[in-house]
């Protein structure tokens, strides 16, 4: 083997140049929306302020608070249960409670729209008790959306809190107990305050998710900023009002993103030493066992079990009536094609950004990496609005092609991917590569035998994550899909919004089935954005 280690006098900044260009393109949609909103006619601003904005801000905030309260209750109590108590089946519930993350909000929303809707099974059961005139509150309401979003997002809080319970230094508890505090007192006065940063980080994540959700609010007809932006885009010839509402939405999302980051920083510093040993789980009394089992099964059934069974039942009858045909497999192909293309492009784009930030942490390179996170605050309809405008001005040739949709996915989901690509590269110390070179391996051999094996897992995780999110994406896909390019998510929404629940089921079930293994795979990595 004759590997000469000649180093070409490479252009030192060529990669930086690529990174700056890429980041510039990534930030363009955000800049464009801001520009459109700020240059809008003052009359449109004032009309929106007097008619729509107060209602939308109120609704959005109220929903975020309601869901935050619900997920706090479910997430923290379940995390405590599985990490501090022992009861039969605890190990199974510990991971099963993550499964609701596999159900997209629009799927859960349409299932609850059927379950709780007028003439649905719950109302029929109620009418057997209360007589034929008994009516339940409609799921198409604040309460309905809050319920659906809570059941869908509580695993965020559950996961973070559970990790905090498991990592908490048991000495604190033991000291508190030795000093005479009761178990309840220890929990509420010592442990929960210590875990506050983790809980709040989970809540911020939930709120960010709720604020940018389109699927549940559109199917349950609850007016939030995200839904209003979509309605403005599809119902008006003039995009100005849409851009104004978009800017407001971006600001709201930004507030919660910053909050989440801040609390995550806090939680990083809050405990200096690791735990000494695993916390002991106290066995439950027979009554406690019964209560714990009923509670966990109840939450699991409501958030995953019943919806999954319904989807299977509906899918079977849809298949029996011939709904799974050549067209259906076309939608599967479209979904797979678009998502894998987007994930691949995003890994390609993320590679130089993550590489530069970890190997050459200059101010410019770090700034580039931060700027690539802009997509986080661009909810689907906002990104679509900006891309529609930008593409029709700058690259009209691309208008209405799959390329625009792929760009939208990349802009929106690259941040989630970067979160696992960045640490993967950072963990590879340059010393390993230098050692490999000095021991006689060439560029390619070092890359193949040292660097790639080390970063592979992180990059695969990033790819899977972005693939899944692109596959579940709804609003941007609805707005940007090319002719004949419906995806599974689009089909679910189109059928469900006309209340053809059975026809929507096969596509929804397929999305859920594809998401489950990936969620379990990613649990050890970064599940934050799943």
């Amino acid at each position: 083997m004759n590997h000469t280690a000649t180093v070409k006098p490479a252009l030192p900044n060529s990669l930086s140049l690529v990174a700056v260009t890429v980041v510039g393109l990534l930030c363009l949609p955000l800049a464009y929306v801001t520009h459109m909103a700020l240059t809008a006619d003052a009359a449109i601003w004032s009309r929106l302020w007097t008619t729509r904005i107060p209602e939308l801000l109120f609704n959005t905030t109220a929903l975020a608070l309601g869901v935050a309260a619900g997920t706090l209750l479910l997430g923290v109590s379940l995390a405590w249960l599985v990490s501090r108590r022992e009861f039969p089946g605890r190990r199974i519930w510990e991971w099963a409670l993550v499964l609701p993350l596999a159900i997209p909000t629009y799927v859960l929303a349409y299932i609850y729209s059927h379950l709780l809707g007028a003439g649905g099974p719950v109302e029929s059961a109620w009418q057997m008790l209360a007589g034929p005139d008994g009516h339940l509150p409609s799921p198409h309401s604040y309460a309905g959306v809050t319920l659906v979003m809570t059941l869908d997002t509580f695993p965020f809080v559950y996961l973070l809190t559970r990790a905090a319970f498991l990592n908490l230094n048991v000495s604190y508890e033991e000291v508190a107990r030795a000093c005479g505090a009761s178990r309840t007192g220890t929990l509420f006065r010592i442990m929960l305050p210590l875990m506050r940063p983790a809980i709040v980080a989970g809540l911020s994540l939930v709120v960010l998710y709720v604020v940018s959700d389109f699927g549940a609010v559109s199917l349950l007809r609850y007016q939030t900023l995200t839904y209003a932006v979509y309605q403005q885009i599809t119902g008006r010839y003039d995009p100005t009002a849409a851009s104004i509402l978009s800017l407001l939405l971006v600001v709201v999302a930004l507030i919660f993103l910053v909050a989440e980051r801040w609390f995550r920083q806090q939680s990083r510093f809050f405990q200096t030493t690791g735990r000494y040993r695993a916390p002991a789980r106290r066995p439950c009394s027979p009554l406690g066992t019964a209560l714990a089992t009923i509670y966990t099964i109840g939450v699991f059934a409501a958030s995953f079990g019943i919806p999954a069974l319904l989807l299977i039942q509906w899918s079977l009858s849809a298949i029996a009536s011939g709904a799974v045909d050549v067209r259906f497999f076309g939608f599967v192909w479209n979904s797979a094609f678009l998502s894998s293309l987007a994930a691949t492009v995003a890994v390609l784009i993320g590679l130089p950004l993550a590489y530069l930030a970890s190997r050459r942490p200059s101010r410019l390179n770090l700034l580039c990496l931060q700027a690539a996170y802009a997509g986080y605050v661009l909810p689907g309809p906002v990104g679509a609005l900006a891309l529609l405008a930008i593409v029709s001005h700058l690259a009209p040739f691309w208008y209405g092609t799959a390329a625009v949709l792929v760009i939208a996915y990349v802009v929106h989901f690259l941040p989630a991917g970067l979160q696992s690509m960045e640490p993967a590269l950072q963990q590879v110390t340059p010393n390993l590569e230098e050692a490999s070179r000095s021991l006689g391996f060439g560029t390619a051999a070092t890359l193949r035998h040292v660097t790639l094996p080390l970063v592979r897992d992180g990059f695969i995780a990033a790819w899977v994550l972005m693939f899944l999110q692109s596959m579940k994406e709804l609003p941007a896909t609805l707005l940007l899909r090319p002719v004949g390019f419906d995806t599974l998510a689009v089909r679910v929404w189109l059928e469900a919004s006309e209340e053809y629940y059975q026809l929507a089921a096969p596509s929804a079930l397929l999305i859920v089935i594809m998401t489950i293994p990936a969620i379990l795979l990613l649990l050890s990595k970064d599940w934050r954005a799943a």
Partner: protein
Amino acid sequence: MNQYHFHCQAIRRILSSLLTVVACMTALPVPPAQAEPDRLVVYSGRAERLIKPLLDSFQAKTGVQVDLLSSGTTEVVNRLQAEGARTPADLLITNDAGSLERARELGLLRPLTAPDIAAAIPAQFRAADNSWIGLSGRFWVVVYNTTMIKPADLRSLLDLAEPRWKNKIAIPNAGSEYLQAGISVIKTVYGDDRTKQFLEGLKANAGTQVYGKSSQIVEAVAKGQVALGVVNHYYVYRYLATQPGAPIAVLMPDQHEGGMGAIINVAGIGITTHTKHADSARRLVEYLVSEEGQKQFADLNKEYPLHPRVAADPALPPYKTTRIAPVPLTKLGELREPAMALIEQAGLR
């Protein structure tokens, strides 16, 4: 220091190989649409299930493949405009003459000289230069729950703004073209102040019962969530066809002596200015206005066929004896912007 350069090189290698993969993947699914003459792309603002059966039977009959993009009416017009000369669309179908008229004003549709089409569709249902052709008629009606109210309770659409209907009505959202067309007509007949009053009352009475789809309004009325709703008539008859016992019925509003008359609109089709398949596109239009095509609008969709020799479903209120609001369809385009301004001022969702 060489590890940086070494990595640059390595990354470039990865990048170039991955780029090749992407290039191959992108090359795969691009349909060679321009090369095949017998393939049409239709942008449609109608719900897919209301138009796809007709396009499928055209495809079966002629062998011309029809690709459909089904989305919101305003959205597809916006899209057509943004795509300009590069649009893949050969035809535009919408639910609303106002949107077709707007597409015509924007130069998106091409005029048609076709005597057989002119013979099939009466002049009041076509653009002056035939750049769009009406395919089927619909009335904007009140659907009511027969167990909750009696038809005598309501005479005019404008009565819906009265406080007695508080929390009892369901309405379409502000983006709905039916609502926009309806308000255009009411505004022309009654003037701005009266219309604004009507919209404010409507908003207050509907509360959160604001829907994105007419089928949902019919469903809400049938289930008794609300007593009344405003929809296009055929959604009611389509619902009754699948659920014959549902407690709903249609009330044709404003039929009283001196009343405004019912608000009519059409679904229509136009051939795009930039189509490269004008002949096939024209065959599709001819098929849809033919007696065979029109019969499908009547039988499948419960719409009013516009061809004089094709009869509507006998369950529908007879077209001939219905009093119709005196606003020509071709005016709906220019009336749209001022009507939308009123809707927005009233703050409808």
